[in-house]
């Protein structure tokens, strides 16, 4: 067995390990999974402040704020603060239109980045619970109430929602929808394990105490939503996930946009993992340091490895093909190859890979049943598997490259959730 084969087996082993870990967790904790299909009423409605930081979001801001106003939550208990982080378009005009509502206030500031906008909002917030909502996302009317029920546990310090791709139109967005659905499953399993490493920008709700105790948002390589979660985990603050609190987000509709978004996420993940390396493989920090961060790092490495393995084999085959042409002067000499079961590979890695794909598709279907209420198989799954295996290596490679040279991805204020 060659060296590359051993690495291949090691990576697949870890990938299968993580999937089995989640599956066992799912089987173990299925009874604790709460998915409410009907409106609920709370006994007590605590005061919540929602911050909407915006930078050049004239197109989607209206819908975002409307969805907040449509939340089924008493208006006097829901404070909305719209923060214009120095937009250059008509964002401020749209914000002004909303100031007629009693529970909406607006702040205009110099551009400083999302974390500065959030921190300014936190200073002004009067709620006991504080959350953000990116101006490209929309909340389901039931979402807030459902999230608040998780705070009945006094130990719960933050709750992340389930994020769903808003009206996917093209194949790229449909593929992303599959990924987000799968992330819902992963996120819930991580929550069961106390190992969530991201409290996504759209509609993660925090106890005010978190910011009082641990301080405000940091720039954190433009992934402040990862950093705050790691800081909370470092200090043993419990993060929950509310799978039936749905938030819809507009996903990148072109490859370059998706590439930039992922570059920022992965770069942020790598840099934050380095910043928080002291929690890795330390029992006192729990599963986040033993399962989440290491498996994230390994999945980055394994995609890179698989990609180079693929490129190597492809170029090898091409060279062989050219050599064959040079030797015989014929491009295709063997006629129609006869199908013979004998030549179907029966290497162990093939069986393991098939099982791994089954586990992934299973995870995806469970995630889908959590967001859609039923298991549905569709062609999008195939798009997802193909598109991501082709594109992901590029942003992963670039992110590693940038992290090596500490090249911060440019601040475009494009931000989405990390699954």
């Amino acid at each position, binding site marked *: *067995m060659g060296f590359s084969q051993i690495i291949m*087996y090691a990576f697949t*082993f870890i990938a*299968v*390990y993580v999937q*089995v*870990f989640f599956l*066992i967790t799912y089987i173990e904790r299925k009874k604790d999974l709460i998915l409410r299909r009907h409106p609920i009423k709370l006994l007590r409605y605590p005061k919540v402040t929602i911050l909407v930081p915006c930078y050049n979001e004239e197109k989607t801001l209206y819908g975002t704020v409307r969805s907040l106003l449509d939340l089924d939550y008493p208006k006097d208990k829901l404070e909305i603060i719209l923060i214009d982080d120095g937009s250059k378009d008509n964002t401020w005009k749209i914000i002004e239109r909303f100031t007629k509502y009693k529970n909406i206030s607006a702040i205009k500031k110099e551009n400083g980045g999302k974390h500065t906008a959030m921190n300014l909002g936190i200073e002004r917030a009067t709620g006991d619970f504080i959350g953000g909502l990116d101006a490209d996302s929309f909340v389901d009317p039931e979402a807030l109430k459902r999230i608040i029920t998780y705070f009945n546990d006094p*130990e719960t310090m933050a709750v992340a929602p389930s994020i769903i791709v808003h009206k996917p139109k093209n194949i790229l967005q449909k593929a992303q929808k599959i990924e987000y659905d799968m992330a819902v499953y992963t996120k819930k399993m991580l929550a069961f*394990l*106390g*190992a969530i490493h991201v409290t996504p920008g759209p509609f993660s709700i925090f106890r005010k105490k978190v910011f009082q*105790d*641990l301080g405000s948002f940091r720039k954190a390589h433009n992934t402040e939503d990862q950093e705050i979660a790691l800081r909370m985990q470092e*200090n*043993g*603050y*419990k993060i929950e996930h509310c799978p039936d609190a749905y938030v819809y987000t507009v996903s990148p509709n072109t490859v370059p946009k998706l590439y930039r978004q992922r570059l920022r996420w992965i770069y942020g993940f790598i840099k934050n993992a380095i910043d928080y390396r002291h929690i890795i493989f330390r*029992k*006192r*920090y*729990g*599963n986040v340091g*033993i399962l989440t961060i290491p498996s994230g790092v390994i999945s980055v490495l394994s995609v890179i490895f698989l990609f180079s393995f693929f490129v190597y084999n492809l170029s090898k085959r091409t060279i*062989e093909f050219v*050599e*064959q042409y*040079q*030797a*015989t*002067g*014929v491009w295709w*000499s*063997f*006629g129609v190859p006869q199908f013979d079961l*004998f*030549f179907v*590979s*029966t*290497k*162990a*890695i*093939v*069986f*393991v890979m098939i*099982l791994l794909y089954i586990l992934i598709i299973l995870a995806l279907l469970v995630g889908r049943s959590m967001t859609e209420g039923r298991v549905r198989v569709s062609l999008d799954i195939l798009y997802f598997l193909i598109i991501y295996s082709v594109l992901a290596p590029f942003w992963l490679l670039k992110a590693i490259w940038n992290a090596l040279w500490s090249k911060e991805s440019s601040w475009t204020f494009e931000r989405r959730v990390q699954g």
Partner: protein
Amino acid sequence: MVKPQLENRKDFEWKKYVIVFFITLGIFLTAFWFSDYFANRKIKQIKDIQNTISIDILSSETQFSLLSELSCKDVDNSTLSKELNSLAEKISYSEENIGKSSEVTELKKYYSLLEIKDFLLMNKISERCGKKIVSVLYFYTTESNCSECVKQSYVLTELREKYPELRVYSFDYNLDLSALGSLISIYKIEDTKLPATVIAGKLYTGFQSIESIEKLIPEIVQALEKQKAETEKENKKP
């Protein structure tokens, strides 16, 4: 001051990590078991083919000895030649993709032996029946990085496709088989001059292109052209 809440952390269980490890290990071992099972089946398949070929050759030889004046029309070994070719493909695939190197080497030895027997039988038939049978003995090596050998294999595969009448027997020079050793010493083949081909009893070393081999086997090339012309004629007939 931040009050650490680490004592609340009840979610970490070593036991689960260990259990999942053993489950994953079990999955991998099962995969290896399956892989081994199929590898054995493939080797058995090769063995079965070899047995059939072996019986065929033995039967032809026996037939040949029994009837000194064998009706030459009955001798037709082209199907056997095809079987040998597909066997060669399967063995070389197994060499690359199935780990069981000692078993595959055994198969390869047996295959080489069958080739030599077929070659000898063909020579006898050719002598007695006056039937011109053109064969190519091809010697290659897998030990040192022999890029010429790879090219030569492409050429011979192509020729075999083009001229089904041509009988190509390929031998791994480094195979430890005494019969093969004799063949190598008969034609005085040196391991530094590989690839080597023996065409119509004459030795050629180094890479031989399609054109140069075609020149050495005029009877086969002509036969094919004749055949082509005839079929064209027939096609033209209404």
